[in-house]
């Protein structure tokens, strides 16, 4: 027995450690909606670095883009570039300001239309892993952001806050595989659950007898207790109504472009 133990000790100990880690993960699933101490520390430490890096990258990309642009054009028409350089820089800058203005105005109109108090925030970082879809924002519990709060933009639902520290929070996007939202079709009020599938979403549990067309708008039903009723999620991309079975297979195209997420709104008061 002792010999067998000595021979298999590394394997047994390794297996035991792995089992303990798995059990710990399993136990933690019950507190999945709360930010633990270590996560809070990580958010506090990485948040300022990520925010600084985000600003630095933005500035560098701007300078780099302008530099490359000028070099390329100088090869074709050096003289004209010299004459117009300052003018172009001003134009580019004003274009950027105009675009930002448009985005913020859209957000402001949306904010004014909402009856719930909102807090604007900036996206400063993405999820570190390719398997999950979360983003970090530059507002936290000091500004009133807590776990479970819905996050939106003018185009529709972005997700909900899953972790928060005093100055930074993490938002689980609706396209994440672990995200599920109680939803309904705007036209015929058919109910279902919208689940994330990476870049797309699926609309589950819609009965076969419901009439669903490509292009139909999917909105939040307000049933889950997280999102207010009537926020746009996306549009039906495809419908597969098989001959048998209770439900239809529906794909949904999110209305929000998650690859260009910059400014968002946190709905500070939960609908409940």
């Amino acid at each position, binding site marked *: 027995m002792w010999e067998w133990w000595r021979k298999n000790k*590394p*394997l047994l100990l*390794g297996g035991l*450690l*792995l089992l303990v*880690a*798995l059990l*710990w*993960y*399993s*136990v*933690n*699933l019950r*507190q*999945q909606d709360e930010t*633990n101490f*270590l*996560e*809070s*520390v*990580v*958010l506090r*430490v*990485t948040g300022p*670095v*990520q925010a600084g*890096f*985000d600003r630095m*990258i933005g500035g560098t*990309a701007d300078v780099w883009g302008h530099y490359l642009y000028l070099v390329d054009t100088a090869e074709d028409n050096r003289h004209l570039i010299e004459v117009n350089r300052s003018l172009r820089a001003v134009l580019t800058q004003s274009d950027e300001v105009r675009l930002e203005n448009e985005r913020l105005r859209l957000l402001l109109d949306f904010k004014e239309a909402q009856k719930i108090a909102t807090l604007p925030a900036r996206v*400063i*970082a*993405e*999820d*570190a*892993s*390719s*398997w*999950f*879809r*979360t983003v*970090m924002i530059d507002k936290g519990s000091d500004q009133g952001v807590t776990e479970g709060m819905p996050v939106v933009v003018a185009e529709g639902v972005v997700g909900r806050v*899953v*972790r928060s520290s005093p100055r930074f929070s*993490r938002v*689980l996007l609706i396209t*994440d*595989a*672990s995200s*599920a939202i109680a939803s309904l079709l705007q036209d015929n009020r058919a109910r279902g659950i919208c*689940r994330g*599938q*990476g*870049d797309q979403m699926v609309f*589950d549990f819609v009965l076969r007898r419901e009439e669903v067309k490509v292009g139909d708008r999917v909105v939040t039903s307000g049933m889950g207790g997280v999102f207010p009723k009537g926020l746009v999620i996306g549009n039906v991309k495809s419908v597969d109504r098989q001959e048998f079975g209770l439900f239809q297979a529906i794909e949904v195209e999110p209305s929000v472009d998650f690859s260009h997420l910059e400014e968002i709104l946190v709905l500070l008061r939960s609908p409940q």
Partner: protein
Amino acid sequence: MNRTLIYLAMAGIAVVLQTTLLPLVLPGDYKPDLLLILVIYLGLHEEPQHGVPMVYLLGCCYDGVAGSFPGLNGFLLLGIFLAVRGIVTRVNTESSPLLLMLVIAGTVLQSAMVAFALDFFSQTAHIWLLMVWQLPVQLLSNFVAAFVLLRLTVWLQRTFLPRRNLPGLRKLDRRYES
């Protein structure tokens, strides 16, 4: 203690790169998992009594910036570390292609463990379907990142610290391979 701090600093740099710079320069939502590469390196060069607590701590910290399941990354990284330790006496750890092969195997193992942990324990529906589509691109990005890091690290050591014997780096240099 110094080594632990260096590894923690490297993990910190990896996390900042993965969350801020790499999403901007790489298309889609695919980014190399630099922490996975670091853990495989640790598996090759650190003893379990030092490596296990550090890798688990790294995993738990990683939960703060990746996914929404506390304890998941600790479980994943620990599993990968132990798997590498399990084969380390049977392979030539001084071979740099081994690290690249282990990165590929580690990526497959990681995705299998994610699918197992999420599909069996959480309410996440059919994540393995999603992962099957993403895996080839993830494999490629991890492989390329490991290759670039390997060359870059050896070059940096030769250029800036030629007399220092940083743990593992000499072994990864092609000149010392048979």
